[in-house]
């Protein structure tokens, strides 16, 4: 059947079921906490109970005496991590500052900061003993209240140091030129911090296989980046640190940073000379592994009465910690999405006594799109125009920020497809006009965009004795189905059925690949896999000798256990003979694949999406139900319609959480979150998820990469929240500018 498929068409574009699906549905897939190691013991972290200050005493006697306890590690007895001292003033992108040095000194930077690790022979004993650690603090006045401290926000250091940094203020045309428009609006938008909350708790098993050889099974999005970080921490050659992340149970960005619990586990393993497993609790997932930062935004917008934007000014303040400067591209979409002649953006960050944020799906852009796309809707309403028509009137066929052509842009196709599918013609211009019993019905839309990035990556391809091909690259798969896409790409490049190809990832021993983030894995690693397969084929062709010498590589096939030609007849050579020609060795290649810098210089490369939402709002309770969503993407070539569709659906549902349910609530008296589990912090559940229809333009953009892909993960969520908030306005006439829109806000608006 697969052989048939190859003759009929390509594997890319097929709805191939996940190659690792069987492992996942049978429970055989191993996540980071699930490796059995001899002598493995358990570590439980103790967190601080003040948000700022110093530890004045920490009494570990009772914990040390508790049954089964092997070690209680605090700043008083922790071995010094060699790299910590060197990091007194690090300047490591993307964040500036000092990643928290766990157990380094007595200073407390945020509530629930890890201050002790209790290691015991069983989880139960470690958990019990952790409760026996008694700590006293000299607490200092903490600052956790965003609004009260907003005036302290500052320009990120990286922008101060580098005038070319995108975090600097930006102006095109006239500064605040919106003011000259006949129709003006000004609005402020806020969303609370959101936690990634992947279903897998952040987990690590740290194992010193020798005093200078460290292996970690770790929930990370970058095995190579983690390898570098820990090698640097411990003063080891990189190849002495091995990082395994074969399966990652979701991450959504929180695996893009290395966190204190990882180093705590490594210290624990060092002290006890045993493999130590640390699995965070769900509460600790709120305090120790990042979040989408609470952000305040103001949009000032001016337009003509016939719907031409005159100007947009977009100001943003995002939260960070006091010890790291976390930044994201909150104002980017405002700079390039619409043909406004006058645009000003201003980005600031605010350091609070809370742990450091980290990019969460659709980082920055999802935040910015909430403000921009809401304001676009507000302006359309002010001038009495359909918001889809208003967007079309301000559509731009070149990038107005960089003054370059788009590599591709099929956003208008997305508009059309989405409007047809949601039934946009049912939408009434006047809010509150559609009613079904006690429910008001509304329609809204929101646009998303994200850079179509491609980096460098290496891949290895080897033809094995059994006629199968194995590919390796040190990327990860946090859920999108990376291995499946890579197998499809390799299948086309090799002319070999997908069931004869295996792709291996999540191991730092494999060739270099960047982190899985920024929607760039298929663009980057897919290109490397493609190139590695072509190089393998070339090598086979060479080994095949003169009879294959004048054949175009794309005419070659690897079916039936032999090198042959697509056309009937012609030369054939068995893999066994090819191996003989290779001195009996596996035939393998490792290549590096890089983007073409000059092409990237000449074009502006983005993925685009538009989301349409139909909502019902209950007139008595204020409850909002999203009843239907349509998500449309211009993401270049779609490698796998099934898994890509799932990514879009997942992004839409994540966006429902952002719009309606998710928000961390801080008790500023203690600087501690009130929401600290999944009963208080509501992520969408089955009952919240409407049918989501997905449309892909599916036109290749070969300027981004040879496969024509542009990236899906981020645009799946960027623009979803404003689609919903705009639909709520259309249903009720109530404009709510604070997320999440819980029923109380609807009723009180």
């Amino acid at each position, binding site marked *: 059947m697969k052989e048939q498929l190859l003759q009929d068409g390509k594997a890319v574009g097929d709805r191939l*079921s*996940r190659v690792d*699906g*069987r*492992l*996942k*549905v*049978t*429970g*055989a897939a*191993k*996540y980071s*906490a*699930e490796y*059995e190691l001899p002598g493995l013991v*358990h570590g439980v972290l103790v967190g601080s109970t003040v948000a700022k200050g110093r530890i004045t005493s920490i009494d570990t006697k009772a914990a040390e*005496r*508790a*049954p*089964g306890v092997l070690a209680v590690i605090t700043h008083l007895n922790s071995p010094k991590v060699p790299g910590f001292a060197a990091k007194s003033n690090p300047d490591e992108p993307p964040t500036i500052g000092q990643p928290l040095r766990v157990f380094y000194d007595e200073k407390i930077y945020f509530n629930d900061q890890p201050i002790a690790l209790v290691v015991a022979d*069983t*989880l*139960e*004993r470690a958990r019990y003993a952790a409760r026996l650690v008694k700590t006293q603090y000299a607490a200092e006045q903490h600052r956790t209240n965003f609004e009260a401290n907003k005036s302290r926000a500052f320009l990120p250091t990286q922008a101060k140091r580098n005038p070319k940094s995108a975090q600097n203020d930006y102006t095109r045309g006239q500064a605040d030129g919106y003011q000259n428009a006949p129709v003006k609006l000004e609005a402020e938008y806020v969303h609370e911090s959101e936690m*990634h*909350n*992947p*279903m*897998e*708790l952040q987990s690590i098993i740290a194992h010193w296989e020798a005093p200078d050889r460290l292996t970690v099974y770790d929930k990370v999005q970058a095995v190579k980046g983690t390898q570098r970080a820990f090698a640097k921490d411990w003063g080891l050659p990189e190849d002495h640190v091995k990082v395994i992340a074969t*399966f*990652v*149970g*979701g991450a*959504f960005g929180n695996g893009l940073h290395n966190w204190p619990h990882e180093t705590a586990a490594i210290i624990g393993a060092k002290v006890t000379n045993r493999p130590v497993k640390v*699995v965070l*609790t*769900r509460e600790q997932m709120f305090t120790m592994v990042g979040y989408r930062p609470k952000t305040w935004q103001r949009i000032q917008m001016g337009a003509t009465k016939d719907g031409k934007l005159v100007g947009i000014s977009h100001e943003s303040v995002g939260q960070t910690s006091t010890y790291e400067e976390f930044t994201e591209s909150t104002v980017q979409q405002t700079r390039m999405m619409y043909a406004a002649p006058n645009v000003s953006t201003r980005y600031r960050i605010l350091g609070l006594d809370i742990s450091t944020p980290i990019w969460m799906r659709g980082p920055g852009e999802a935040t910015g799109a909430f403000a921009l796309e809401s304001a676009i809707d507000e302006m359309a309403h002010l001038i009495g125009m359909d918001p889809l028509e208003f967007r079309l009137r301000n559509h731009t066929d070149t990038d107005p920020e960089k003054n370059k052509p788009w590599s591709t842009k099929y956003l208008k196709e997305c508009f059309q497809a989405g409007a047809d599918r949601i039934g946009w013609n049912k939408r009434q211009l006047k809010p509150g006009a559609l009613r079904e019993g006690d429910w008001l019905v509304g329609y809204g839309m929101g646009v998303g965009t994200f850079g179509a990035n491609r980096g460098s990556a290496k891949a290895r391809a080897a033809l094995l004795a059994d006629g199968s091909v194995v590919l390796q690259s040190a990327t990860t798969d*946090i*859920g*999108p189905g990376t291995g499946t896409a890579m197998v499809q790409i390799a299948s086309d490049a090799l002319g070999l059925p997908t069931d004869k190809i295996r792709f291996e990832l999540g191991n730092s021993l494999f060739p270099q690949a960047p982190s899985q983030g920024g929607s760039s894995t298929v663009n980057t690693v897919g290109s490397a896999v493609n190139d590695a397969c072509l190089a393998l084929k070339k090598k086979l062709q060479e080994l095949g000798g003169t009879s294959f010498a004048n054949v175009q590589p794309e005419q070659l096939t690897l079916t039936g256990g032999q090198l042959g030609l697509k056309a009937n007849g012609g030369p054939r050579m068995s893999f066994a003979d090819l191996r003989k020609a290779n001195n009996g060795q596996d035939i393998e290649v490792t290549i590096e694949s890089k983007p073409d810098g000059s092409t990237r210089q000449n074009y502006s490369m983005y993925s685009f999406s538009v989301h349409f939402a139909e909502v019902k709002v209950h007139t008595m309770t204020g409850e909002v139900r999203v009843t239907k969503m349509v998500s449309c993407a211009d993401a270049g070539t779609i490698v796998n319609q099934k*898994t890509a*569709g*799932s990514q879009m*659906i*997942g992004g*839409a*549902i*994540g966006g429902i959480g952002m719009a309606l349910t998710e928000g961390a609530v801080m008790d500023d008296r203690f600087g501690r979150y009130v929401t600290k*589990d*999944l*009963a208080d912090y509501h*992520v*969408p*559940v*089955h*009952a919240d*998820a*409407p*049918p989501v229809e997905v449309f892909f333009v599916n036109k290749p953009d070969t300027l981004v990469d040879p496969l024509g892909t542009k990236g899906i993960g981020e645009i799946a969520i960027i623009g979803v929240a404003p689609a919903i908030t705009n639909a709520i306005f259309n249903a009720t006439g109530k404009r709510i500018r604070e997320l999440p829109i819980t029923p109380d806000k609807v009723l009180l608006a």
Partner: protein
Amino acid sequence: MDNEMPPQPAAEGCGHNETRRNFLKQSSLLTALALAPGPILKAAEAELDETVAAAFEKVPLKLDVNGKKYKLSVEPRTTLLDLLREQLHLTGTKKGCDYGQCGACTVHVDGKRVNSCLTLAVMQDGKKVTTIEGLADGDKLHPMQEAFLKHDGFQCGYCTPGQIMSAVACIREGHADSEGEIKEYMSGNICRCGAYPNIVAAIQEVKSGGQKV
């Protein structure tokens, strides 16, 4: 279930083979300790901690997990989830919250779905536990597993075992008659990747296929 299970050798690598009598003997020791004068206790504190703990921390337990009979001795505070994952190395059952809020740890106990993080292992004495590892018939996947593959009812795969165990129970309970009903009765199983519509489609297909689940 049957408490008079015939004596079985402990499953390989599954802990001590302790009897109830043994436990009672240790309990008497504890009573004696409780009555001992303070200074004696203090003097022997370090060693006694371990002795006392060992007595307290081990309770005999018989379990049938996926058709395999286990005779175990476990700490009373050990949850069924941690027993499965940490001692029996059945890691297909996942820990997502430890509070019964996410459903990742769903298993069947005597055929009913249970959040294994909310139940102590010792409460399941003599019961029959089915985990995701025991759902398939050898190499032949359960229809629900097949349907999840076909409809792509997962992404990262972490909530998947719980979703599948819940989905099977949802049909068995008679709570899968409509999309709305499925969504309601599956809402205890969170999928952060947002595979919900695909999961519901998988359940509907299995339900309408009429296969025995």
